[in-house]
């Protein structure tokens, strides 16, 4: 008997295939680089990402949203091949809605994690061929346990819990150490920060990543481009508006530059 409320199975029954594996080593330029991060703060979890999409040395786009709201209480930040990542986000978005509407209850947080793992596992051939690798961060608020949670993945679909924080993308090695340092020896641990302090921290981290990783886009004040920063609390997902980010950046980040 088929699993009840499974939208992905419904799609597959109708002939849908996620990510066709290409030939390995074709050498095509793919848009893969980025920096995304998530950490727990006082009221929930904050997720942020730069806005640059690249193909090799070329900047393809500087206004990409890589921190995508899947439902009112979960967000997927994407690093890797955008085409596959966006497709996964669309599948998950529809899957969670379909489950809620058919089964008349929300899919559990564990169920949501499993749904993403399944997609990554199905995508392994494309990931290994080099045409569809995705390494996301999944963050959300678990209503049953009344706690914010962060998970990160490898390209094969292995799932790891980020107890305090998680990072992904080409700029992540730069900021991983900083996060560890701030969390361990800073004035206060990340989990004690207010939303504003957390947002400032995210802006500083992404600015650092952009400093050392050409594939991560920093803040472009002339063009009014700021990273995407979203917070998730028991009330749901909230995206921080650009004017607020600009004010935080100007008073807490740019003075050091």
């Amino acid at each position, binding site marked *: 008997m088929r699993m009840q409320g499974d*939208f992905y199975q*419904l799609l597959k029954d*109708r002939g849908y295939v996620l990510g066709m594996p290409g030939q390995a080593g074709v050498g095509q330029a793919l848009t893969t680089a980025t920096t995304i991060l998530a950490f727990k703060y006082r009221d929930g979890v904050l997720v942020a990402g730069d806005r640059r999409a690249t193909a090799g040395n070329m900047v393809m786009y500087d206004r990409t949203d890589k921190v995508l709201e899947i439902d*009112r209480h979960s967000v997927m930040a994407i690093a890797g091949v955008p085409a596959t990542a966006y497709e996964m986000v669309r*599948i998950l978005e*529809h899957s969670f809605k*379909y489950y809620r*509407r*058919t089964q008349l209850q929300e899919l559990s947080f564990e169920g949501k994690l499993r749904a993403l793992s399944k997609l990554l596992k199905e995508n392994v051939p494309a990931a290994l061929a080099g045409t569809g690798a995705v390494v996301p961060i999944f963050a959300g608020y678990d209503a049953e346990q009344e706690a914010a949670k962060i998970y990160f993945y490898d390209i094969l679909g292995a799932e790891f819990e980020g107890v305090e924080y998680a990072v992904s993308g080409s700029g992540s090695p730069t900021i991983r150490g900083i996060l560890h340092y701030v969390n361990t020896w800073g004035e206060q641990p990340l989990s004690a920060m207010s939303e504003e302090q957390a947002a400032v921290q995210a802006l500083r981290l992404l600015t650092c990543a952009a400093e050392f990783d050409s594939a991560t886009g920093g803040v472009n004040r002339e063009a009014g481009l700021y990273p995407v920063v979203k917070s998730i609390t028991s009330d749901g997902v909230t995206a921080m508006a650009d004017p607020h980010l600009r004010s935080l950046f100007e008073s807490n980040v740019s003075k050091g530059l």
Partner: protein
Amino acid sequence: MYEEPYRWVEAVGNRRQYLDAQFAQGSPVVGVACEQGILLMTMSKGTPKLYEIYDRLAFGGMGHPADLEKLRFTLLEMAHVEGFNRSASDVTGSRLVKYGIAPVVKQAFEEVFKAPFIVKIMLAELSQKVGKDGFLTITYDGVFEEKSRYAVLAASASVEQRMVEYLRPQSCVSLKDAVDLAIHTWAVGDRAQRHTDETGGDPKDAKGSSDQPVTDSQTLMTHVRQCMQEKSIECALLDRYVLGTSKYRILGSGELETLLPKDLSSALT
């Protein structure tokens, strides 16, 4: 035996009579558009009758629960596959009904060797603009109608007519207006239905002492209060102002308490 045309017509006629009788005990459904969105209201005993179909689509039904579930799932599958393959804007009530369930329901009704769907369904669709909200209703024989400000489902066309006559002259702006109007309209329909059921006659006979049907608020609210002893008020809203893409939400008892007429909100607790 049905190869003779008149036999088939007779069989379909019998089927219509049988189906009409199935709705006699059902609970009417009322849909009303207001500034905040679209309100759907009914009274149910245990099994809910109002559901979410897609981001801006809600479903209300009368009839056999298993048939309603089957068609609800058909709508859900169609809407989500369409929304995924095309876009949320391409999922419209009109397409789902006209090219989706209406042909299926009609075919089941006319195939006299098979069981028909014992259903009457209302789909409410929230538009991007105030004043453009719409409704679609479909009956057990596959006949569908499109409506704009309001829509009703009841046991028979004459009961529905009564409810519409009550609804038509009323204005409805706020959500509180909509809840109030929906509950009064529901009571008009349910009273007429019960009278028809008891007398086996036309609901036009369901009058008070005058020639006009009872529409005074006190009598209607007394009727609702009596019904609340065995049923509960079910209200769902396609809320224009709710955050996110999904606009459907159920009005919980706390919110209903503030929206219901005073004498009913006390009966809630």
